[in-house]
């Protein structure tokens, strides 16, 4: 597959009174045409900042692109002139955001917001654009599109607004769609609708997708590959199946073990990751996960290189967490060997619709 995007050693900082916040701290990844990549992380992990810096949508200042290249096709977006960047935004790469309630301009009707990218990038006349806008609204599942075109954002529910947002994003047929927590603000049944829609559009249009979320469940179903971020760095990267089947970073391991799984038997206690996510104003020397890590070693004080731990599988950890000896050592710090969910699951206790029938 053709390489679409290549991000190398991206560093983004926010200038504050008390010093720089190292929001993204040396992130390297790539994306192929038509691929769906998941970026998973908690608040402050740098996942959203990474995605916003691709389109250079961060407010600068206080944000500052300190280092790195963002090669899209053959252009480096990191130092493209603003005028050329505008031709990339919306046309080549488009984005949808977390909060559909605030992402649409409240004083403009849907039509004028939706035809903007059509007129700008596809040079459509107003009439052509209006026709296309109706098709787009229908494509994202908004009933009665011609009439709804005249409506204002506040007349739509959250789920409908996110559909409008998606229509705006795909209007000029971008090659890459970045979805930054597109369902976090929505209810679970609406989330299912939106994820379904994104998956279908991706199939129909062949668009590459970067899906950013804090919810491991959301990425499990729709992505080809996943990046796990922690404290502005990539902790682990693998194909989706491999990541869930064979997690190799203690953070991924902890994350998977600490959330209750609907497809598993109910346990007495959840395994916890002690402590809190770090504050990027005061980064920890070496591996940022060490204060919370049961596998921690003396050499974790220097940051581990990304090590290939399998085909298409990288992890930034000195420890081989699959080694029984290491697990034994870690169990003294409270580590519970990772539940064997991959080797089939107890059919009896798995909720409706989740057993492999």
């Amino acid at each position, binding site marked *: 597959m053709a390489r679409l995007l290549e991000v190398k050693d991206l560093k983004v900082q926010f200038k504050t009174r008390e010093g720089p916040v190292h929001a993204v701290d040396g992130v390297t990844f790539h994306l192929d045409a038509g691929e769906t990549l998941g970026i998973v992380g908690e608040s402050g992990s740098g996942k959203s900042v990474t995605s916003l810096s691709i389109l250079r*949508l961060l407010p600068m200042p206080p944000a500052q692109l300190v280092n790195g290249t963002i090669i899209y096709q053959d252009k480096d977006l990191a130092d493209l002139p603003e005028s050329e960047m505008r031709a990339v935004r919306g046309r080549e790469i488009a984005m949808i955001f977390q909060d559909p309630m605030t992402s649409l301009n409240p004083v403009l009707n849907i039509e004028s917001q939706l035809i903007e990218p059509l007129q700008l990038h596809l040079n459509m006349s107003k009439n052509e654009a209006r026709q296309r806008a109706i098709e787009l609204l229908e494509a994202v599942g908004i009933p009665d599109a011609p009439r709804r075109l005249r409506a204002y954002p506040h007349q739509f529910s959250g789920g409908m607004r996110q559909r409008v947002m998606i229509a705006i994003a795909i209007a000029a047929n971008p090659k890459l769609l970045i979805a930054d927590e597109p369902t976090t603000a929505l209810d679970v049944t609406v989330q299912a609708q939106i994820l379904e829609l994104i998956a279908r559009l991706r199939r129909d249009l062949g668009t590459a997708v970067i899906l950013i979320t804090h919810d491991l469940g959301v990425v499990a179903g729709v992505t080809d590959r996943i990046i796990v971020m922690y404290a502005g760095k990539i902790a682990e990267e693998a194909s989706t199946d491999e990541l869930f089947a064979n997690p190799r970073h203690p953070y991924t391991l902890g994350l998977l073990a600490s959330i209750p799984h609907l497809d598993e038997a109910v346990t007495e206690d959840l395994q916890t990751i002690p402590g809190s996510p770090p504050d990027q104003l005061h980064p920890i020397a070496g591996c940022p996960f060490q204060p919370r890590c049961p596998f921690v070693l003396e050499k974790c004080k220097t940051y581990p290189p990304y090590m290939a731990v399998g085909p298409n599988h990288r992890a930034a950890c000195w420890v081989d967490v699959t080694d029984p000896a290491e697990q034994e050592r870690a169990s003294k710090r409270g580590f519970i060997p990772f539940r064997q969910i991959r080797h089939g699951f107890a059919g009896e206790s798995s909720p409706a619709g989740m057993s492999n029938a």
Partner: protein
Amino acid sequence: MRRYLIRRVVQAVFMLFVMSIVFFTLLHLIPGGPDAVIGANNPHITPIQRAAIRHRFGLDQPVPIQYLSWLGNALHGDFGISFSNSLPVAQELAARIPATLELFLTALGFALIMAILLGVTAAVKQYSITDYLITVLSYIGISMPVFWFALLLQELFGVQLGLLPVFGRTAADTTSFTNLEIFEDYVVHLILPAIVLSLLFIATWSRFLRSSMLEVIKQDYIRTARMKGLGARQVFFRHALRNALIPLVTVVAISFGGIAGGAIITETIFAWPGLGRLFLVAVNFPDYPTLLAYLLFGAASVIFFNLVADILYGVIDPRIRYS
């Protein structure tokens, strides 16, 4: 929306009615009220003359009756007769309105243009020297006593530089002027008072617009607009300014309501023959029928323009228009 409108209008009318009672009672019950004023300047007045005057102005009736008859007349546009020159108050006021409107509209129009220019510039160039300069100037504008500023301008442009007239609305004698000269004469007389009157508006509005603009720029939908690939100009004027102007529109509308009080200082200092000067003369006399009418005029304009502000807000903001 229609129901809301009716409700607001009814409320406004009721408020004005309450105001009229309050003002009437206030002016008639205070020591040194209308009764005491009669003949105050004439030590030789006889009790019979006094009674005649009291009767003529209806002051021999109980206050509630006086109020009702005043109200009845007022509803027909009759606000009584001035104590100072025995002319109908309504007529006096009406004669002064054009001069005040001319000054007020010029000043507000000028202020609006300046405030938008300065506010938007400051917001676009946040933290630049221009921004600091505008901020400093608006702070000074807010903190400056208007009458003092007026005196300084008068001294500088009128007396020292001799560039502009400092008193009145027109030259004393305009009979020999051509039409163009008459217009010019109006304009040069307007400049200083209009600048003085607009100072406070420019300062407050530009600061208001700057902060509302900066607030809007932070919103998610501005990021959406940039995501589409729109240029800075379109993002700013099409997406940001519209949202930032909505609250300013209501602030401006409310400022109109201050016409009665706002004109007093400027008109007095520049000897502008408008309502404000009429009022000041009435206060000093004291000419109660004129004062009462003026107070009501003031309250009415505040109430009316508050209403206008509410309605405008609904018209401009689709979130309210459709709910």
